């Protein structure tokens, strides 16, 4: 079953195509890698799908039912989508625990004012933070965490939303091997839970290890797609990454 269908998606910045007439389909419960050289449109694609950047042209279908040609960032949650960012975007001058609790808050004004965080919220936050080894840092301000810890917290925050589709934008970049293991195991667990993961990554070892399917972008266009082992051997893919 297709969980995400993108048709002829286009985005231009000052006349330059960042994403150019891109169509692709993503199966439910799969881990899909998106690779490509710098500037190939990977992050722009995720930004378009999460409403951070407006779509110029094209259509996106979620779960075979919800179509959109325009979407606001605050609407993606209702589509069961969440994401992390290439450059970590946390709530810096808030505690680690508050960074999780905040996404467990009611979405409407009255609910957020009058519905307090119950025991289940605190227990769930604890479980999530323990998963990324940050429970003992729960009262620390985020701005005092290391880069790797911040990456893990951002992933934890995404997990807290219990979404169906996760966009992870370079979650392994710049983190220690131990932390990489944690992130990899989280992705594997999400897959076991039948969640769909779209993973932007440059590490081909991890791509081979984690991904069921691969899309290769170059200059905003789809260069190749298929099983990682097959796609990564293709000459045009190697050429796009390594040059002549």
């Amino acid at each position, binding site marked *: 079953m297709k969980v995400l269908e993108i048709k002829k998606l286009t985005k231009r910045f000052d006349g330059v195509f960042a994403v150019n007439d891109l169509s692709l389909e993503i199966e439910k419960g799969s881990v899909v890698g998106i690779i490509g050289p710098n500037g190939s449109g990977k992050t722009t694609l995720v930004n378009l799908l999460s409403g951070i950047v407006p779509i110029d042209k094209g259509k996106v279908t979620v779960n075979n039912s919800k179509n959109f040609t325009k979407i606001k960032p605050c609407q993606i949650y209702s589509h069961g989508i969440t994401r992390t960012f290439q450059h970590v975007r946390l709530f810096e*001058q808030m505690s680690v625990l508050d960074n999780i609790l905040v996404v467990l808050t009611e*979405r409407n*004004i009255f609910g957020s004012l*009058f519905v307090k965080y119950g025991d289940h919220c605190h227990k769930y936050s604890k479980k999530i933070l323990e998963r990324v080894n940050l429970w003992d840092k729960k009262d620390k301000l985020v701005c005092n965490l290391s880069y790797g810890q911040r990456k893990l917290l951002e992933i934890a925050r995404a997990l807290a939303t219990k979404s169906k589709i996760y966009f992870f934008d370079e979650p392994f970049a710049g983190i220690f091997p131990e932390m990489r293991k944690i992130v990899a195991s989280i992705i594997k667990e999400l897959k076991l839970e039948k969640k769909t993961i779209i993973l932007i990554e440059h590490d081909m070892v991890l791509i081979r290890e984690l991904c069921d399917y691969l899309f290769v972008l170059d200059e905003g266009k789809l260069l190749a797609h298929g099983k990682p082992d097959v796609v990564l051997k293709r000459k045009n893919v190697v050429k796009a990454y390594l040059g002549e």
Partner: protein
Amino acid sequence: MEYLIHLGILFAIYSILGLSLNLVVGFTGLLSISHAAFYGIGAYTTAIILTKTGLGFFTSLILGIIIVLIISFLIGLVLSKFKGDYYALGSIGFNVIVLSVLLNWQDLTAGPLGIAGVSRPEILGIDFSNKFYFLILILIFLLIFYLISLFITKSPFGKILKAIREDDGAIQIFGYNILYFKLVIFIVSAVMAAIAGSFFASFVTFIEPSSFAVSESIFILVVSILGGLASLRGSILGALFLVLLPEILRLIGFPVDIAGQMRQVIYGIILILLMLYRPQGLIGEYKI
């Protein structure tokens, strides 16, 4: 004693203003420089109603709240689309517009001449022209506003406000329409400022447009920043310090003809020093 009560009333008025602005600037990260406008609307509503109609202070207070609810809703709707420097500039623009209206709508506001003879409240037989009773009354309002602000900032809603302050793009990803959150806190803050304005008009009994210029908005901002951004107690501390400062300067013996200017210079120096050495204010949590 009369002198101390006078200072106490001013302290309470600026505490309410500092508290309310802190909800917008300190907790939500929206650099609003328009608080004097709402303060002025509240003050003028009370002054006009008390001097031109037979209605009482609390009726004027309620009318002021209704007027500010409407205006702050409309202005908040526009400002909520901005962030950062643009928000600050937009808010200054609104303050300038309100000041122009106060100066030029002479039939209603008496223009630069101001409105004199504003009476003090009287409820249930208690005459608040007695300054001590007036002080008690406004301290009760200060306590109520402190508790409301505490409730808001400690609630999950308060966490959303802080998240908007930290990264308004990232929090939207999690399903929050920040426009509503920004609008609600802006309106709450504006209503509190209007109520402070009503008390101010009734207390000083004479108001003029220059009391509600952009410089007053900046002064209220200094109250919030000095005490501490995202700290309710900080706003109270900031108000205490800045209300007492002119009295301290008077004791030092600044000549009367330059005391006013020196006060402005000192406020400016305080703001610069704070930005350099303690951007979160005296007991604040948030650095601009």
